[in-house]
């Protein structure tokens, strides 16, 4: 599956993301429009994480990148998991 490269910052490869990445929001950019939650294939409320500024730590997150690619404001990025 290829992802649309739009307002996203792919600094990790797909394999790295699947292995040890997660989605990280930057709440200062977010306007809570809800495009992320609406497009999540698993129905995760990504927007609520973005409001709290918390990484999407949900065991069901596929890191499929739909939310990252579709966010019109570049709020979401893939980031490597840190220890702890």
């Amino acid at each position, binding site marked *: 599956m290829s992802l649309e490269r*739009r*307002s*996203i*910052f792919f*600094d990790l490869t797909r394999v790295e993301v699947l292995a040890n990445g997660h989605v990280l929001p*930057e*709440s*200062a*950019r*977010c*306007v*809570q*429009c*809800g*495009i992320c*939650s*609406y497009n999540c294939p698993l129905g995760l409320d990504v*927007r609520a994480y973005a*409001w709290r500024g918390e990484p999407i730590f949900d065991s069901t997150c596929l890191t499929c990148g739909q939310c990252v690619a579709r966010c*019109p*404001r*570049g*709020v979401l990025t893939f980031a490597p998991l840190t220890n702890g």
Partner: protein
Amino acid sequence: MAANYVIVGSGVAGIAAAEVLRARAPGASITIVSEDPDGYYSRPGLAYYLSGEIPEKHLFLRSKADFRALGIHWLHAQATQIDVAGHRLILADKRSLAYDKLLIATGARAAAPDFPGGDLDGVFTLDTLKDAKRLVRKANKSGQAVVVGGGITALELAEGLHACGVNVHYLLRGARYWANVLDAEESELVEAYLRGDEIEIHYHARVRQALGKRGKLYAVETDSGEIIPCQILAVAIGTRPHLDLARTAGITIDRGILTDSCLRTSAPDILAAGDVAQVHDDSTGRASLDTLWPTARAHGEAAANTMLGTPTPYHRVVAMNVTLLAGIPTTIIGALGSGSDEDLVAIARGDSENWRTAAPTWVVVERHEVNRIRLMLGDRTITGALVMGDQTLSRPLQRLIAAKADISPIRDALLADDHAVLQLIATFSAEWERNHAATT
């Protein structure tokens, strides 16, 4: 006795304040008074509702039940007056609410059309979900629309109407789009995209009047005498803070409600936050207006802490907006332009007065077919940046600008070679972040 907090307005500033109040004062009474029957939803999200990217129900951020669960009273009512000495908020139906601290977060309203015929059926502005729903209903039975105005909202209206299948004419009063923030090439990128969508742009075109029959719009007449038949005229010529409540209460106002850095107004125990507040910045000595969502949220949170007895200044961060301008991802950071824009009579939504405070300065532009980066360079710092298309550098630039990072080591190189800008910034930023992390 538990404290009694009343908030007027249900936008992000009011809700952010209510959440902080509830978290820090579990026993307090918190009431939100809102004129908007739809409650709390994402205002910026209305653009994506218009374009069909999200359904209506996804705009809502908290339900009435969520507020009940938080113990926040929700009152759908219009607040008309404040009894400042008696500490009471008076509603249109003559009821009144006692408060210990009152937060005015009434936001801004679209400026009314400034031409004859602006009150005809078919003339729209975009403030609320109700406006957006009416516009979509109307668009579904309309063939042609005229959009006038500037800034982000005008584009969102043009594209939203286009997405609804309406033939759109976009009237610009000047020679190009958003002339006081974008440079000529950036405007052209946006205009080319609109033309690609078959939106017809009319330059140097001003509405002389909206023409109607039996109160219903049928055409727009421009000042050159051209008649453009249309069933919709969408107007986005700026927003004005909603000041009625503050004005009748005798609170000091300028363009917005003037507050100190901790969001306190001239009246005791009354604060203001969000688009309605013109907040004093202790570092610059100025008070300016922002119509940005993150600013409104930060105002609300600082105001709540001040209400709780811990005077908390709102720290102005670098004004920044990330948005789609005609489909092109665009980040606007810091001071970029100056002067005024003929298409706006007041501040647009998603705008900051601080973007137009650019001092005469060097400008560096990295050109690419679609992607574009413009940097405003001060003596030792980057003072502003506009990133269109690829957003790889928007985050590093945001950090460097906010931190007023000393870019002297690469300043000459930036000015010497436009093509090296991307690499220079990427390398410098990586090194700056490493040093920054080491020293903090």
